[in-house]
C-alpha cells in the first residue's frame, strides 16, 4: 500500500497491516547519476525531492553514510520559525515557513507541523527594543509577529518566573504565532518517501570518501560502495561539511561544534508553544509524545563527537529552571548531541562554489531544521539552474570576502558565539 490516508489505514488495519510496502526502496547505486546529493539529512532529502518535483530531474542519488535522518535532522529541537531580523535571512526563512504550511499534504506524509507559536522572552529595555526592531522588520516583510508585554506573557505562560526571585525579570517578548514545531524524523522520512516515489535513489550506508576531478569539475564521487559518476553534485552534510569540502580542497568559513539537546519523561500537556529565554541560551517546547524538548548553548569547543559535557548540561538546566521553576522536578530522560556547522556570521550558505559543478549547502548553525523545505527548494533551483534562487542570493559563499555578512547577533567571526 503506497498512498497514505485514513482509508488506507483502516483497510490495512482490517487485514493486519500486511499490505504496507517499504516507505522507500533500498536500491544498489547506479554507475552514474545526473545529480548526486551527498548527505541524507533533511536538506539533502528535500533537495532531491524538489529537484524531481520542481525541475523534473529524477536521475538523482542521495548518498548517506549512515541511516537517513541520523544526522542533525534527527537530533534537533524541532523549532520552526521565520523571525529573522536581516532581510537576507528573513525572506528565505519565510519562504521555508510557507512551504512547511503545506508540507504534509504535499508529501502525503504527516510531518506534524504544529504552529503553536514561538515566543522569545526579553529581560531588559534594550532587549525589548531589539525584539521590536526584529518584529517590525518582519511585519514590513509581511511576516507575522507580535510584541508582548510582561502581562501578555504572564497570561500565556503563568508559570514562568514572574516572582521577585527572578534574577532577570521578564519584560515581555516577541511572539511569532505561525512558528512552531514539527516531527523531526517524519520530515526526513516524508521527504525520503516523496523523493523515492519520484524516482530518486536513496542509498544508505554509503559514505563519500573522495572525488574524481577533471580540472574545475568533479566527474565522480568515491564512496564506501564504489565510485559513482555524476553530472552535478550537491553537498548537504551539515556538521561534516569541512571534511567533505576538504576532499575537493575547499577551505570554508565553518567550524564544527557540538550542540546538546534533551528530552524529559513524557508529561501531560504542560507547555503550549515554544518559549526561549532571553537572559541566556535556552529553549523549550513539548513534543506530541509529552516529553519536554529543550536545549541551549554550544559546548564551545570544536567537536565532531555527538555528545557533550556536563557543564553545558548544567547550564542549560539552570537557565530552564530559572525561567520555569515548576519544571525542576521534571526528570531528564535522555541527552544527546549533534555536530553543528557553525558559520562565521551565524547564517547559512547555499551557494555555488569555485568548483563548477559542485554546490554547497552548509553553515546551518543551530537553525537549519526550520529551513529544511526552503533550503531544499532553493538548493534544487541553484543546482538545476546553476544560479541562485532569489531567496538564496544573499546566502552566498563570497559574502565573507565582500563583507555582505548576515550577522543576526553581531557577534563577528567567532562561531561559538552565534
Amino acid at each position, binding site marked *: 500500500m503506497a498512498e497514505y490516508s485514513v482509508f488506507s*489505514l483502516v483497510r490495512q488495519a482490517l487485514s493486519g497491516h500486511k499490505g504496507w510496502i517499504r516507505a522507500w526502496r533500498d536500491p544498489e547505486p547506479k554507475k552514474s547519476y545526473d545529480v548526486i546529493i551527498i548527505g541524507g539529512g533533511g536538506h539533502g532529502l528535500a533537495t532531491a525531492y524538489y529537484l524531481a518535483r520542481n525541475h523534473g530531474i529524477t536521475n538523482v542519488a542521495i548518498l548517506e553514510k549512515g541511516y537517513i535522518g541520523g544526522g542533525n535532522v534527527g537530533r534537533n529541537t524541532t523549532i520552526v520559525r521565520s523571525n529573522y531580523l536581516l532581510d537576507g535571512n528573513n525572506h528565505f526563512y519565510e519562504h521555508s515557513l510557507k512551504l512547511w504550511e503545506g508540507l504534509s499534504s504535499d508529501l502525503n506524509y504527516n510531518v506534524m507541523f504544529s504552529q503553536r507559536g514561538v515566543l522569545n522572552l526579553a529581560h531588559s529595555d534594550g532587549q525589548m527594543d531589539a525584539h521590536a526592531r526584529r518584529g517590525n522588520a518582519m511585519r*514590513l516583510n509581511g511576516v507575522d509577529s507580535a510584541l508582548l508585554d510582561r502581562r501578555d506573557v504572564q497570561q500565556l505562560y503563568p*508559570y514562568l518566573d514572574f516572582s521577585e526571585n527572578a534574577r532577570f525579570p521578564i519584560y515581555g517578548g516577541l511572539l511569532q504565532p505561525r512558528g512552531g514545531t514539527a516531527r523531526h524524523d517524519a520530515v526526513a522520512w516524508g521527504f525520503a518517501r516523496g523523493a523515492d516515489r519520484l524516482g530518486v535513489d536513496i542509498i544508505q550506508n554509503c559514505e563519500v570518501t573522495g572525488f574524481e576531478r577533471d580540472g574545475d569539475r568533479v566527474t565522480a564521487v568515491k564512496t564506501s560502495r564504489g565510485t559513482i559518476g555524476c553530472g552535478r553534485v550537491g553537498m548537504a552534510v551539515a556538521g561534516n561539511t569541512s571534511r567533505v569540502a576538504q576532499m575537493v580542497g575547499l577551505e570554508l568559513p565553518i567550524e564544527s561544534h557540538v550542540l546538546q539537546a534533551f528530552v524529559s519523561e513524557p508529561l501531560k*500537556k504542560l507547555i503550549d508553544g515554544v518559549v526561549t529565554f532571553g537572559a541566556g541560551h535556552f529553549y523549550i517546547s513539548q513534543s506530541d509524545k509529552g516529553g519536554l524538548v529543550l536545549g541551549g548553548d554550544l559546548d564551545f569547543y570544536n567537536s565532531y563527537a555527538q555528545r557533550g559535557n556536563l557543564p553545558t548540561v548544567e547550564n542549560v538546566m539552570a537557565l530552564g529552571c530559572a525561567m520555569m521553576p515548576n519544571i525542576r522536578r521534571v526528570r531528564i530522560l535522555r541527552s544527546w548531541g549533534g555536530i553543528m556547522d557553525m558559520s562565521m556570521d551565524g547564517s547559512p550558505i547555499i551557494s555555488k562554489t569555485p568548483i563548477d559543478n559542485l554546490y554547497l549547502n552548509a553553515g546551518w548553525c543551530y537553525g537549519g531544521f526550520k529551513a529544511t523545505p526552503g533550503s531544499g527548494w532553493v538548493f534544487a533551483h541553484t543546482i538545476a539552474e546553476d544560479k541562485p534562487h532569489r531567496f538564496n542570493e544573499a546566502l552566498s559563499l563570497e559574502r565573507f570576502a565582500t563583507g555582505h555578512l548576515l550577522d543576526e547577533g553581531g557577534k563577528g567571526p567567532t562561531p561559538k558565539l552565534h
Partner: protein
Amino acid sequence: MIFGRLPLEQSHRLLTGGAIDRLKPLSFSFDGRSYRGYAGDTLASALLANGVTVMGRSFKYHRPRGVMSAGPEEPNALVELRSGARREPNTRATMIELFHGLRATSQNRWPCLRFDAMEVNDLLSRFLVAGFYYKTFMGFPGWHFWEKRIRAAAGMGAGTVEHDPDGYETMNAHCDVLVVGGGPAGLAAALTAGRTGARVILVDETDGLGGRLRSERDTLDGKPAIAWAASVAAELADLPEVRVLTRTTAFGIYDNNLVGAVERLADHMPVPPAHVARQRLWHIRPQRVIVAAGAIERPLVFGGNDRPGVMLAGAVRTYLNRFAVTPGKRAVVVANNDDGYRTAFDLAAAGIDVMQILDTRSASHGAWRERALAAGFDVAEGSAVTNAYGRMGLVGCDIARLDGRGGTVGDSRFVPCDLIANSGGWTPSIHLHSHAGGKAEWNDQIAAFLPGSVRSDVVTIGAARGRFALSDCLSDGFKAGAEAASSCGFGTGTAPDAPITDEVPTAPLQALWSVPPTPGKKVKRFVDHQDDVTVEDIELAHREGFVSVEHLKRYTTLGMGTDQGKTSNINGHALMAAARGQSIPTVGTTTFRPPYTPVAMGAFAGRTTGRHLAPTRRTALHDWHAANGVVFIEAGPWLRPQYYLQPGEAVSKETMDRAITDEVVTTRTKVGISDVSSLGKIDVQGPDSAEFLNRVYSNGFAALPVGKARYGLMLREDGLVDDDGTTSRLSDTHFLMTTTTVHAAKVLADLEWYLQVVWPELDVRVSSVTEQWAGMALPGPKAREVLAAAVDPGADVSNEALPYLGVTCTATIRGVPVRIFRISFSGELGYEINAPADWGIAVWEAVMEAGEDHGIRPYGLEAMGIMRIEKGHVAGPELDGRTTPDDLGLGRMASTKKWFVGRGMLDKPAFTDPDRPKLVGLVPVDGVSRIRAGSILVDDPDAATPVPKLGHITSSAYLSPTVGHPISLGLLARGRERIGQEVWAVFPLRGIRVRARVTETCFVDPEGKKLHG
C-alpha cells in the same frame, strides 16, 4: 489526618523474614486509599503486600499494568508521587522508599485507575499501530485539530505548574577509585581498594549495600551473604579515605572520566530537613572507575505478558526475600535459564504454590533442574506460557510445547495462577561503559551485549560484564579493586581470597526472543511495555523498511520510554535481526546515552537558579544608593542605579518620569553625580605600552602626553567596531584604559591575547583594576566648583591645572588619594573621580556634601542615557557588532597613518558601500511624537510588502528635557546626505508611524563649549 480510613491489613506479607522493619509501620495512601507498610518497603512492595496489583496504565493502549520489576528498570508501575508543588509524575513505584504519610496517585487514566475511558485505545489498537499518525491527519480538518486531541491523551503523568519549593546543590569530589554499584562485585572492589589507603568512593543507586545479595538467599562462608555485605559496609564506613554514597545514581560518564552522580538526600522523607537540599549532584573525578552495576533481567515476550501479575523472576525473589511479600498465591514459573528453578525454590519456601515450572529450553540437564525434579516440582521442558489472562490481575495462562521453530506442538493447556515469574536471561548494565566510549560486544552464551574494549581507566566487572556467578562477581571485585588501587600507587595489587559461596552450577540459557501465541488466538506480545510496542509493530517496521535499529526505535518508539529500553531493547533488536535474517551483532544496538536513569532538572541546575542564576555584581557605592532611594536595574551582572526616588515616593510611571527628568535637568543646569564604577578599568604598564595601545586602538595613542586622556575606538579583526572608552596616560609607561561595562571582560581577554600570543615581543602587562576603584562622574556647570570644594586643600582643579582631558593623580578627598579625569559623557563640564573602593562612599559623600549648596543630585542610567543621546554619543545599541567606524560617524578615528587591529578588513566592498546606513539624529516633525527604539525607517510605509527599509532607530529619548521634545538616533541609508530630509519611522507592531526629520547626531552644544568651559 489525611488518612480517613483504617489501614487495610497487609494480606500478602510474610510473618517473618525480609529486610523490612516490622516495628516501624508506616501509613501511606495510593489513589486516596490508605494502606500500611513497613520501614524498608518500597511503594511497590508495600502495595503488593496489600494485594494491590494494578499500579498504572500503559502509554498508548492504556492497558492496566502491575509491577514488573523491583528496580530502576520498571516500565509499568509509574505513579505521581506527592502533590501540589512537589508532584513528581512518572515515579517508579519500585524505587520509591516508603515514608510515613507518603501519597501517590495513579496516572495516565481517566477518571480512575480501574475504569479508564482511554482504554478504548486498546480496542482500537489495530488502528493505532506503530507510526499510524504519519499516515493520516493530513487533510481536513488538519493536524491542528487532531493534535489537540492527541496531546491531551499523550504524556504519562502530569507535571505541576507550581514552583518547586525544594533546594538542590552540586558537590565536587576527587578520588583514586570510584566504584559504581554496591553489589558483591562493587563491595569487594571498594573494600580491597579502600584497605590500601587509596581514596575510594562507592556509589549505589539504592538505599543500602548488597545489590542482588539483598534479594537472594545465597550464603558466603556459610553465613547469609547479606551479613557479609553488612560487614563490608561496616568496614568501609570506618576507613577514613572511603566515602560511601547510597541513594546515589552514577548517571553518566563524561570526558576524562568525570562521573556525574545524583544523590537523593531527602526523597525518602516527606520534605527535606531545614538547610538540606533535596538532591545533590556530584561531579566525581576519579583516576580509575570500576563499574559494578550488575545486570537487568529480561522478560520473555509472550501473549498477555503485560498482565498485572506477570513479573520478572528476579523481582519475585526480591519481593519474597527482601520485602517478605508474596506477589501471588499460585505461581507459574517460566524461564529460558536456570533462574526459573531458583525462583521456584524461593516461592515454595515462602509457602506459595508453584503450579508449574516451564523451562523453554529444549533440553537442559543442569544441576538446578535435577534439584527441582528431586524436590518434586512439576517441570515442563521446551514449553512456555503462550497467553496470559486477567485484565486487572492474572487468572491464569495457556501453556504449550514449543516446536523450536517459532511454533507450538499440540494443544495448549490452561493453568490457573495469579503470578507468572518469568526470565529471559540477564542483560549486563553496560550503560556507563558505553558512555565512556566502550564498544558493545555480542555474547551468544548469555545472549546479550558485553562491554568490549575501552580505555584501561574504566573497567566493568561482575554481572555488568556478564559474570553472573556470585563467586565470579566476588573474584572480579577483589581483583579489580586491588589493581585499580595499585595503578594509583596504593597497595601491592594482589587480591585477597574471596569468601566461599554455596552456588549450584548453572546450565547455559537458550535465547528465546518471542513465544508463539496460543494456537488460534490473537494475542498481544509486548516487547516494550511502557510504550506498547508489540512483536507485530516490529514486523510492521520491518515491512516498511525501518530496518536499522535506529529507524526501528524511532518508528515504533521501542526503548524510548522512561526506562530507555532496559528490559526491551535486546528483545526488540533480536526480533528485528530475525526479521532481517541477520545476526544480532550485525543489526547492532542503539546508543546508550546519559542519564542512566532519569534525573531531575533541578539537580543539574543545583543552586545556580532563581536569584543565583548568575552572580550579582555590586559597585562599591551600592550601599549608599540603597539607602538613598535608588531603583536598581540589572545591567549584565551588575546592579546599577536606574534613577532615584525622593523620600516618600513610591515606584510608578509618574515618579520615574519625574525623577529622570529632574536628574537630567539638575545635571545640565547645576551638577549631578553618578556611579560609573562598572566601567572596565585596565591597568597597562610597561615600556611598550604606548606602542601596544597604538596597535589595538584605531586612533593614535603613541603621542598621548602624560597626564592626558583620549577617547579611543577599538575594532574587531573583521573591521567592525568592538568597543570604545577613554584611556589616560599616567606616566610614560603606565596607562589606565577604560572600557564599556558590557565589554570589560572581553577587552581584557583580547589585550591579553595580543600580548601573549600575537605580539609577545611587546613588554607590557595588563590587569583589571575595575574592582579597586569606585568611579563617579561629576558633570554639570557647577562641577568645578563642587570638585574644588571637595578636594583637600592643595589640590588645584582649575581649568588651567586640569583642562579638558586632563588627568591628575595627586589630589585627595577627605584624605583619600583619588584620580581625577576631566572627561564627560554627558557633554557638560565634567570630571570622573576614581577612589579606592573601600573609601568610595566616603568620597562620594564628601562630593555630595560639597555640592549640596549647588543643588547636586545623583542620577542613574536613564538620565545618563538621555544625556548621551542628546550628545549623539554611541553606546550599546549603536555598537551592535555590525557597524564600521564610518557608519557611526567615527571614520576619522580610523587612522590612515598606522596599522591597527581591524584595518585589514575595512576596505571590503560592503563596508565602503555608500548606501550603508549611517548614524544620524531623528526628531519628530510634529515635535511631540515619540520615536521608539526599534522603529524601522522607510520612505513609504504603505509600499507593498516587503516594504523597502532604510534603517532603524537605535536609541531614543521620549523626551529630551534639554531640547524639549523627543529625540532619537538611528542608522539610515545614506543618512548623512539626508540631513534635513524627512523619513517615516514605523513601528507596525504597535501600529505607529512617525514622520521624522533627519538631523545631526548631536542635539546639545554641538561645538562642545561646555566641555571646555
